[in-house]
């Protein structure tokens, strides 16, 4: 017989997962939320929000899932963004646990730092190594604008995730 606590926990993780999946669908729908050819990477703020609001293990798992989704949509080798987001989520989780206050501004700044790291590593391993300077336009006209545009959606996604966390908060 599932307990009330167990049900609350299950619903909380279910809604986190649905939020992540929904954001993945929205980010890959052609033309939706697009400015020119730039669309936001919504899965990154969602997995970082889970890492901030929950714990480092939850952040690592959601980071891995979000990264695998991003790998599929961006045609990167499977696991590339998975590893990056997994590590970033653990790091962000610890930062907010020990040093940083949980609020929307700090979360947006953390997202910005995480996106810069992810985009920088992506450019280094997938473009600079193979195409050297000829691919700089990709960084300046696609990857960095995409990261910047994603920040616009950080506050509402953090608010949504925090609503889920507070609604289904389980006293440990």
């Amino acid at each position: 017989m599932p307990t009330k606590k167990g049900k609350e926990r299950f619903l909380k993780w279910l809604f986190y997962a649905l939020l992540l999946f929904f954001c993945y669908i929205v980010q890959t729908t052609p033309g939706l939320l697009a400015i020119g050819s730039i669309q936001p990477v919504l899965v990154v703020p969602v997995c970082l929000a889970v890492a901030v609001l929950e714990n480092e293990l939850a952040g690592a798992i959601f980071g891995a899932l979000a990264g695998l989704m991003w790998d599929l949509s961006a045609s990167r080798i499977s696991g590339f963004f998975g590893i990056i987001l997994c590590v970033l989520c653990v790091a962000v989780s610890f930062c907010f646990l020990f040093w940083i206050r949980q609020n929307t501004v700090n979360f947006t700044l953390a997202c910005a730092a995480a996106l810069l790291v992810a985009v920088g590593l992506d450019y280094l391993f997938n473009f600079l190594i193979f195409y050297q300077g000829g691919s700089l336009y990709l960084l300046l006209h696609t990857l960095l604008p995409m990261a910047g545009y994603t920040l616009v959606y950080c506050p509402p996604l953090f608010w949504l995730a925090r609503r889920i966390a507070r609604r289904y908060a389980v006293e440990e």
Partner: protein
Amino acid sequence: MRDFFKTTRFKVILCVLALLLGFMIQAAYSGTLSSVASKAIGFVSTPFQAVSSAVTGWFGGFFDRLTLADELLEENTQLQQQVRQLQGQLADLDRYKSENETYREMLQIQEEHPTFEMEAASVIARDSSSRFYSFKIDRGSDQGIALQDPVITQAGMVGIISEVGPNYAVVTTLLDPAFKVGATATASRDPGMVEGDVGLAQEGKTKLRYLAPTSEVKEGELVMSSDLGGTYPADLLIGTVLEVQMESSGISKYAVVQPAVDPSEVTSVMVVKAY
């Protein structure tokens, strides 16, 4: 913080990272970009992406009718002027008809290649961080699509299948440096290889490389696929030559090619499953 490295959570996180590394190794070993996990995510997400894409397209068309009314009226007036001008050019109709039939013979894929077995597919997902406008379609191995199958439209070649799931596939476009196909220029019949170029991709162009130094390829020539190597069928339109240059090595020439199809704009394609 140091105690964290002795906890079960840390060990679980290490397991997750090891699993992700395993996916990466599996993807690299299989020669594709995808792992079992990616295929599972793709299989589950494809129906939702198809619905989302259809709904977004419908709403986009609906609001376009409201917001573009003034533009459409002006365009209508201009088009009426053009119709009057064209009516005065009816004397050239026979010549246009003859040229049209030549282009139809060249470009009408089904009439030229009745042996092609094709599968129609819709573009259901794009990601702005994807490489060189690669996209996802709503057909996969369940419909007989396989890796390296050419992807075309009525206008010409778009790319090749680089990843396949049961109900989806990912298309690498001809702007991608990983895209390589044997090709010939139609007038001079000079063989070469169409290969994406990072520098040209930003302008939406690609490259016909390995032309002989004595090649007579000229601006305006059509570039078609050849069946050298046996990987792709022949006579698929790739694009038009814009200019011809000598490679920096001085050994061969290359031509800058304007693709017949803009990969960033396609919404539906055909996959050549067999030929």
